[in-house]
């Protein structure tokens, strides 16, 4: 690895005001980035500046502010399209978050094309957001919901995928990176196999777009969803990328203002893409904030971010492996993302998270919105540390020290 791609988190930490905060008298070590990431000054400032100087509602306003806001909002769309290598800005739809993006596809595309007897394929490692909408759709349509199994090592079992691809399969919905295991799925390969079987593919990119370079054209998927708040951007805005030719044929998800071309008494004509899927006043300032977040991430460099997180994950793997009683869930250190879930013998993850919190270390504990995965591995609730480019090896050390403190404190049980 060339030293050029090495990233020094100290350079970027100063951009994040919250990282100066003390928690329980200790400097914050924020290791809950898979849930949401912190915001750099640049994004906070972009939101503030927009509201202070440029804010108005977009579209069809003739006045200066409305025009400026419209330009800023649509420029954010261009920025998103370029960031994920989307071939066409018409395919970039702003939603509230990943969950809403997936629901849009389930309601609009799903309720149009999925019929009784069809099969929807998901995987055992899905977040509830890429599972429950398909469960609902399958139940309503009388379709079958099939699960691609996960190997003991935490990878998708591609033989099980192939089996489910035989027959009336219409859709494969899967995550790019598991929010529990940190597994990076071979999405290009899976898309190729699914397409060969005649199925469409939706990819949940909530844990990938913030952390590594993503090229939706190379992946060749039909739908791709992600959230702004997990990539240094504001809450309240997410993205659905869809092939324009599919989006064209889909009915609207939500209806009302902004998504129509003409309204008559009995019926309406829908607006062109992507406005057709953006009913009501959208998250305008948040789109501007997301654009600022993308600029910021590009200045850090997505390759460098990915390399740094893999380094932290490998280091955490090594330190946790040396911690008696700790057990890491998911694939071996190499090639996984910066998500490290684990259990600690005799220490409930909620107690661990609480004790770590008193040391200023923020992690998450529980089922991480992935009940089926925990059931299939027979897992109790787990603790999860998840890294971003502003995290350091010293923070991993503080995590491990905290685990040992928790073990000592709770060693009272008979």
């Amino acid at each position, binding site marked *: 690895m060339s030293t050029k791609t090495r990233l020094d988190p100290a350079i970027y930490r100063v951009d994040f005001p919250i990282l100066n905060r003390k928690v329980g008298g200790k400097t914050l070590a924020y290791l809950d980035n898979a849930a949401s990431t912190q915001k750099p000054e640049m994004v906070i400032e972009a939101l503030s500046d927009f509201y202070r100087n440029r804010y108005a509602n977009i579209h069809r306003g003739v006045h200066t502010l409305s025009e400026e806001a419209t330009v800023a909002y649509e420029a954010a769309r261009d920025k998103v399209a370029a960031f994920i290598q989307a071939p066409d800005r018409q395919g970039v739809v702003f939603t509230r978050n990943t969950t809403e993006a997936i629901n849009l596809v389930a309601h609009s595309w799903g309720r149009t094309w999925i019929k009784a007897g069809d099969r929807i394929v998901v995987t055992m490692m899905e977040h509830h957001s890429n599972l429950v909408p398909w469960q609902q759709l399958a139940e309503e349509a009388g379709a079958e919901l099939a699960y691609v199994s996960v190997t003991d090592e935490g990878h998708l079992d591609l033989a099980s995928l192939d089996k489910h691809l035989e027959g009336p399969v219409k859709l494969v919905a899967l995550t790019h990176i598991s929010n529990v295991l940190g597994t990076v799925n071979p999405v290009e390969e899976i898309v190729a196999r699914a397409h060969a079987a005649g199925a469409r593919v939706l990819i949940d990119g909530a844990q990938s777009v913030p952390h590594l370079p993503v090229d939706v054209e190379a992946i060749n998927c039909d739908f791709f969803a992600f959230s702004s708040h997990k990539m240094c951007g504001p809450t309240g805005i997410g993205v659905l990328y869809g092939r324009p030719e599919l989006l064209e044929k889909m009915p609207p998800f939500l209806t009302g203002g902004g998504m129509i071309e003409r309204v008559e008494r009995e019926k309406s004509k829908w607006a062109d893409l992507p406005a057709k899927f953006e009913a009501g006043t959208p998250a305008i300032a948040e789109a501007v904030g997301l654009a600022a977040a993308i600029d910021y991430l590009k200045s850090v460099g997505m390759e460098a971010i990915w390399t740094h997180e893999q380094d932290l994950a490998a280091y955490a793997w090594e330190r946790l492996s040396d911690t008696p009683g700790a057990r890491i869930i998911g694939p071996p250190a190499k090639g996984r993302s910066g998500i490290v879930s684990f259990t600690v013998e005799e220490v*409930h993850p*909620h*107690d661990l998270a*609480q004790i770590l919190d*008193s040391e200023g270390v923020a992690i998450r504990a529980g089922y991480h919105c992935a009940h089926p995965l925990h059931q299939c591995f027979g897992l109790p*609730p787990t603790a999860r540390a998840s890294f971003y480019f502003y995290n350091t090896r010293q923070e991993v050390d503080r995590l491990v020290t905290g685990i040992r403190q928790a073990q000592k*404190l709770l060693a*009272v049980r*008979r």
Partner: protein
Amino acid sequence: MSDLYRENILDHYGNPRNEGVLEDADISHERQNPVCGDVVRLDIKLEDGKVEEARFRGQGCVISMASASMFTEKIKGKTISELREIDEQDIFDMLGVELGPSRFHCGVLPLRVLEEALAESEEV
């Protein structure tokens, strides 16, 4: 170290009181907390309309287990109508600590088990 892990709580967690089951229980109920998977089963034996004996069995974090242990002591000798009056504030008083939103459900789990058990016995 966190306020939550004070001595009395760790003592009940480390040396749970009344742990086990009652084969001849008059009230027996189990509940799982969907948030974290913690489970508490409560067995109660009545005598002259009062709690003669209470046992718990469960799996979970320090707070839910300590709370269950303390709870079995707290309810001993109470009548059914007194059991119905126990509320969340009583649990905080019993634990000696106010629980925030993230640990609230752990502390009140034994109370929820009792409430469900009483609601069910009412239906019968």
